[in-house]
């Protein structure tokens, strides 16, 4: 059963979460009952047969061994080589799941959510390397974090230390009521976004484009805008469900969207779109790359370092979506836009040619909107068909 795809799923979830809500309102601990709910919902999601249950189990065991092994190692030693090997092994199942389909063999490595679960495991390894996670973690803590069912299929990607704080917390009745209210509110926003707006755009507009458009160019142009809006409402709707259900369980999962279509520039856009993913890449790829370059003094030119960082980040983000031409082009396109904006921002800091004021903010938003929509048009794969 795919999460949040049918009303049956919501009805089952509603029934299962009723005791959670009662416990929360009474100010009791939620964690024990939550484990029970998690086991049932995970069984429902993965019992279908085509979601890769055995791969999920093998993956989880591998990650637990790697994380626990690395924490034990790190308490005594701290070699960079060991860190890189452990990180590579942690990402290996994800790499396999992306490469196997290209080789046209059976994709045994993949399961629902592998792209997102990998990030949660790697993040623990990196924070252990940095000395932020010092104590050994229990298997329960690790599995509970990695397989947190509300966000298992497509995120948002939470951070271990943040998750752990909420998970251990006993909410006061007033605090929990506030969470519950927000959670339910988010779920209804999700219905509106995904099942009403997103569904309508796709069914009544995109699927009828060959009647609406009067030529190949207008067909592609209208597709570009409608697909961009559909993508937002569909994904933001899903995210609202995932975050809403998390809240009801007493976990404040991070948000993924903050009004992305009013971004003033491409940098601003990446602080507003799929935030848990872009922040992950910012913190664990871009900033680490820049830090390494500065520390070792390998490259002196600031502009070059940041632009190489963007190229690395966005190409990785591209192939993370899949090893298909549209995702690689999408990554390269955003790397180019970020590097271009980087030059412009730097130039404008000196010359101050770009006027400020309300009207110019509107102009910036309109330009960014079109740049972003063209990116989604590439992402959709339509130009490569």
């Amino acid at each position: 059963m795919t999460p949040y795809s049918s009303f049956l799923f919501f009805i089952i979830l509603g029934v299962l979460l009723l005791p959670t809500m009662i416990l929360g309102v009474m100010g009791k601990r939620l964690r024990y009952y939550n484990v029970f709910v998690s086991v049932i919902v995970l069984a429902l999601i993965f019992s279908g047969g085509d979601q890769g249950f055995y791969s999920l189990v093998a993956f989880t065991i591998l990650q637990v061994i790697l994380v626990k092994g690395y924490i034990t190692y790190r308490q005594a030693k701290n070699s960079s080589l060991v860190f890189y090997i452990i990180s590579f092994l942690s990402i290996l199942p994800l790499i396999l799941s992306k490469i196997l389909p290209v080789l046209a063999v059976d994709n045994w490595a993949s399961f629902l959510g592998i792209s997102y679960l990998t990030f949660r495991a790697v993040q623990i390894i990196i924070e252990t390397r940095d000395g932020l996670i010092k104590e050994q973690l229990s298997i329960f803590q690790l599995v509970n974090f990695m397989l947190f069912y509300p966000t298992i299929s497509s995120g948002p990607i939470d951070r271990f230390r943040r998750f752990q704080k909420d998970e251990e917390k006993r909410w006061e009745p007033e605090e929990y009521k506030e969470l519950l209210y927000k959670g339910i509110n988010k779920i209804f926003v999700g219905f509106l976004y995904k099942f009403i707006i997103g569904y309508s755009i796709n069914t009544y507009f995109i699927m009828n484009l060959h009647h609406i458009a009067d030529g190949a160019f207008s067909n592609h142009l209208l597709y570009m805008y409608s697909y961009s809006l559909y993508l937002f409402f569909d994904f933001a709707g899903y995210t609202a469900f995932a975050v809403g259900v998390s809240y009801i369980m007493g976990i404040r999962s991070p948000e993924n969207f903050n009004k992305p279509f009013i971004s003033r520039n491409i940098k601003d856009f990446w602080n507003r779109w799929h935030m848990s993913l872009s922040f992950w890449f910012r913190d664990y790829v871009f900033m680490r790359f820049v830090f390494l370059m500065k520390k070792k003094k390998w490259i002196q030119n600031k502009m070059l370092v940041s632009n190489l960082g963007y190229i690395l980040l966005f190409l990785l983000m591209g192939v993370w979506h899949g090893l298909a031409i549209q995702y690689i082009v999408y990554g390269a396109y955003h790397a180019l836009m970020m590097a271009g904006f980087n030059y412009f921002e730097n130039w404008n800091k000196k010359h101050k040619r770009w006027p400020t004021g309300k009207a110019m903010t509107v102009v910036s938003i309109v330009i960014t909107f079109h740049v972003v929509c063209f990116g989604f048009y590439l992402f959709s794969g339509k130009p490569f068909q």
Partner: protein
Amino acid sequence: MDFKEKVLQVIAEVCEDDVVKEEHDLDIFEAGLIDSFATVELLVQFEEQLDINVPITEFDRDTWNTPNAIVDRLNELK
């Protein structure tokens, strides 16, 4: 120069703006004075000039957002 002044000096150098020396509760991310690239520069400078090692993963934008907050965090790590 006391510790706080030293830290403010480093922040001002990285932000390329002396306003942080005056307004100690200014949110430097919201004010657009610093981005992720400059953040890394800040961490490198803390290490080189103050000899305090701040891991990138420790630097949380919600708790390192103003000059005062940064001084507090660095005091905890000293």
